[in-house]
């Protein structure tokens, strides 16, 4: 882009503004990979717990303990990347900053729930409350990114959570939990990823002049 070579017309000014705002918008897009990984991990833990309840291979919470261990390892790796390797992003958007705080708050709330389950709330009710928490997080995410699939998914997730509240069998709660993460994280994650790939492909084609 050159400067001061010619007088800008009003239409050209408007075009530049539009073009640059669209460029910045692309930075706000989420590739959905985080939702997909998180969603599949939760889904696997729920389904494996249901199978484990049937065949009694291990302790009831074996797969949830595994999930917790993997999550902790991932969190430690991320913290090391941020603090020790001083990984920085080239651009900071308002939504990225919001999500950083939101994710921290979300994990703290999850910890609250896990403690509550261990302090007597019980796993069936505890997981129902967790599903409610997922719905809240998904709604904020979808709204901030103006991503309709997540906004719709948040209400369906809450419906799963509400039904789970009335279940006494842990097996049924686990199936509802699996359904909630499938609708709340996995499906919107794959839609977001497909849209992100399309957008990135279009941008590459544009820059290559195709």
């Amino acid at each position, binding site marked *: 882009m050159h400067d001061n070579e010619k007088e800008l017309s*009003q239409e050209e*000014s408007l075009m530049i503004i539009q*073009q*640059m705002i669209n460029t910045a918008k692309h930075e706000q897009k989420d590739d959905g990979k985080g939702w997909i990984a998180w969603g599949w991990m939760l889904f696997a833990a729920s389904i494996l717990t249901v199978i484990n309840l049937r065949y009694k291979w291990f302790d009831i919470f074996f797969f949830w303990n595994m999930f917790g261990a993997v999550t902790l390892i991932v969190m430690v790796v991320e913290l090391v990347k941020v603090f020790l390797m001083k990984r920085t992003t080239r651009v900071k*958007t308002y939504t990225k900053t919001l999500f950083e705080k939101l994710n921290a708050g979300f994990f703290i709330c999850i910890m609250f729930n896990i403690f509550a389950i261990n302090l007597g709330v019980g796993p069936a009710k505890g997981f129902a409350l967790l599903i409610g928490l997922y719905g809240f997080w998904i709604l904020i995410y979808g709204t901030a990114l103006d991503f309709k699939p997540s906004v719709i998914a948040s209400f369906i997730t809450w419906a799963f959570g509400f039904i789970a509240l009335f279940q006494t069998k842990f097996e049924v709660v686990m199936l509802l939990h699996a359904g909630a993460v499938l609708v709340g994280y996995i499906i919107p994650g794959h839609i977001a990823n497909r849209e992100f790939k399309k957008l990135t492909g279009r941008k590459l084609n544009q820059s290559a002049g195709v």
Partner: protein
Amino acid sequence: MFKELDPILHSQLRLAVMSLLISVKEAEFTFIKEKTNSTAGNLSVQVQKLKESGYIEVNKQFKDNYPLTTCKVTPKGIEAFENYVKALQEYLQVGK
């Protein structure tokens, strides 16, 4: 009577820089250079002009022995940009 278009903003590269920064919290110089398709020298000059006008804040630091420049739009810059867009809309409405 039409408002005069802000001469600081009414330039291709400076307007692009401002439009980009208005949509984000802050951005590195290299990011702006890449997105505006400009040269480092030209961008440096225009960023300096925007800084002198008080429209952007420029923060220079070192990271792993390399200079790292980040830019951020100021409240004055936001106001100027809004006024520029309003003036532009007036021109375009009359032109229709």
